[in-house]
């Protein structure tokens, strides 16, 4: 059943390639898009894109539905299985797996091979599963440590490059009556970010991904080493207390009012930090420091958000043209600019916005992320393992003594999931 469906989809893709050369002009019918870009700025970007694409093609009607970003994470299943739209938003890497395996995303490898998406070669891997490509990215952003530059200056600290410097900094910060890191782990994933970085720095990117693929037991000594490093920060009081009660936005005021000096987060946090009253003089960014001197090739988290064509899409030609449109260098420059998403463009030919943090992130990812680029804990790990895993990570941050029990549980989950 599934294979028939897939060949059907592939055949359809082939016919569109044959008809491909002229398709930019005579698109007709309706293009149905469901987007999860529901926050104010992304929503404006998406609505702008839809309107513009609609205008470019007089015979085509673009029908855009914007769904709440959190709600879409569960609604996408229904949306794709009954009366599917043509184009949908989703996330890269393992987060695609359920839909790829169920044959709900269209295999668009041919479009990539035909050169539709020039300038995107470096991100192709994140959209590849079972050796086929299932979508296109439209934006990504760096993770890293956002810190209070003014407090660092006041205490005479500089950006740490090694774990020893990091711990020494943290001790000075604690002695000044503050906490080193704000974090709100109520919705679990911020703890996943911490694990990603500690594990990539302790054991390297390749080990991290092997763990994500389920090839290494959670009870492995190398995993324990990661947790031991984490524990150093926990035991010295580096994290704010009661973080399990707050979500990540609720923990932000602690950094804004100076009770905590730094936050390991994605670049999307900058917007809220600025609107919370921090100026660019007070705020700065550094790459997560090296821990294990043998791991010199840094791995980084840079989650990628994506567009996919539904396997049951009605207007495949228009969908293909739309994917080309959003990934083109010109549109990428525009939508990722400071007026738009304020993130990094996926097209290598696009220009990066003139913003302190976007520039630093771009520089870090293009020059100092030689280890490799990971998506994020809940995107690299299979869904079930991610949810059990992040719960364990949160528990570890509150009760570090329960580590053995937690690791046994994660290991049991690993053996069941993979």
């Amino acid at each position, binding site marked *: 059943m599934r294979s028939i469906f897939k060949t059907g989809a592939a055949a359809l893709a082939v016919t569109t390639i044959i008809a491909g050369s002229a398709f930019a002009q005579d698109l007709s019918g309706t293009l149905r898009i469901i987007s999860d870009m529901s926050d104010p700025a992304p929503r404006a970007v998406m609505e702008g894109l839809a309107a513009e694409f609609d205008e470019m093609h007089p015979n085509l009607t673009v029908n855009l539905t914007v769904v709440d970003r959190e709600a879409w994470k569960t609604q996408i299943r229904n949306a794709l299985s009954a009366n599917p739209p043509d184009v949908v938003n989703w996330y890269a890497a393992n987060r695609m797996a359920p839909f790829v395996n169920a044959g709900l995303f269209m295999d668009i490898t041919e479009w990539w091979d035909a050169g539709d998406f020039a300038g995107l070669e470096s991100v192709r891997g994140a959209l590849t599963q079972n050796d086929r490509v299932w979508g296109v990215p439209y934006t990504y952003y760096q993770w890293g440590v956002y810190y209070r530059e003014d407090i660092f200056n006041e205490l005479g600290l500089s950006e740490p490059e090694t774990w020893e410097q990091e711990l020494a900094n943290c001790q000075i910060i604690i002695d000044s009556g503050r906490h080193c890191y704000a974090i709100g782990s109520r919705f679990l994933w911020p703890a996943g970010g911490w694990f990603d970085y500690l594990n990539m720095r302790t054991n390297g990117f390749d080990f991290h991904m092997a763990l994500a693929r389920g090839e290494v037991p959670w009870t492995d000594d190398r995993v324990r080493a990661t947790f031991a490093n984490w524990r150093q920060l926990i035991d010295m009081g580096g994290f704010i207390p*009661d973080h399990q*009660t707050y979500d990540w936005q609720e923990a932000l005021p602690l950094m804004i009012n100076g009770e905590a000096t730094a936050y390991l987060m994605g670049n999307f946090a900058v917007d809220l930090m600025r609107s919370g009253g921090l100026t660019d003089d007070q705020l700065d960014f550094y790459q997560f420091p090296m821990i294990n001197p043998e791991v010199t090739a840094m791995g980084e988290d840079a989650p990628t958000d994506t567009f996919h064509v539904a396997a049951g899409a009605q207007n495949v030609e228009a969908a293909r043209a739309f994917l080309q449109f959003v990934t083109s260098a010109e549109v990428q420059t525009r939508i990722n600019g400071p007026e738009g998403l304020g993130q990094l463009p996926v097209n290598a030919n696009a220009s990066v916005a003139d913003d302190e943090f976007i520039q630093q992130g771009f520089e870090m990812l293009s020059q100092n992320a030689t280890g490799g680029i990971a998506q994020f804990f809940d995107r690299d790990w299979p869904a079930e393992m991610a*949810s059990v895993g992040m*719960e364990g990570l949160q528990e570890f941050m*509150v009760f570090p003594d329960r580590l053995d029990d937690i690791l046994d549980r994660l290991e049991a989950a690993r053996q*069941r999931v993979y």
Partner: protein
Amino acid sequence: MTAPATPLHQPRLEATWMQRNRMTVTPILFLLPGLLFFLVYVISPIFQSFNISLYRWDGLGEARFIGLDNYRELATDRNFEISLWNNLRWLVLYLLAIPLGLFIALFLNQTVTGIRLYKSLFFFPFVLSQVVVGLVFSWFYLPREGLLNAALQFFGLGTVNILGNPDLATYGIIAAGLWPQTAYCMILYLTGLNAVDPEQVEAGRLDGAKGWKMLWYVILPQLKPATFIAFVVTIIGALRSFDLISIMTNGGPFGSTRVLSFYMFEQALGEYGFRMGYGSAIAVVLFGIMLVFIAYFLWQMWRDERAARHG
């Protein structure tokens, strides 16, 4: 045998059949739409859940038959065990709403100026959405800014992070749930108290009953119907505790406040949940627990009805 063929008699014959069976046909016709919907939306999903619980299915692709494996996994799943215990805590502690409601009702059952205002103020929390109640209580419990900790500190006691402590969080949520539920029980008892026979109270008083004895032997027996309804709605409320948990802790910290309905949702339909079969197995267990109570309720109602008919 040939009689129906005669055109003269046919309409009369049909009419008589309808006439003869009107008493049976009419109620069936009226019940039919409701029964149909009940069958399609309530009964058939129950059996579907039974069926799905025997499969390994992500809700999208192909389902694979695995027999009772989901149930075997449940038996060793610690999260399931925690959820089950939490369900039990909810069932037992939620029943506190009944005596609390009764005492508030007794307290309010007097004629003072403005009593209607007091009654409606006490009833107010029940009108609020559960989501609002959950939000208000989670602010109340906040470790730094919350009113509870401000009060504790005022009296020189240390702070406590109720929703962040795996041992306390469930009790914190139940306390939040008791607030509207007590109001509900109170209103049930208030209406019940209106129907208490003043002559019996008078007679009891003449016989020297007062205080607790009066309450226990004269008032409470007359409130039995109200108690039964309060019991039913409280049990149902305890088993439907989903929204408060979702708002206040989202099942956390690290899964310690989950109940079966929440765990079922997480496994089958949540953000990372792609286990329809496992979720269905949890649903079946939950159904089994509910069945015990439903059977008791039905039996009780049937007995009352029979007593009413014969009495």
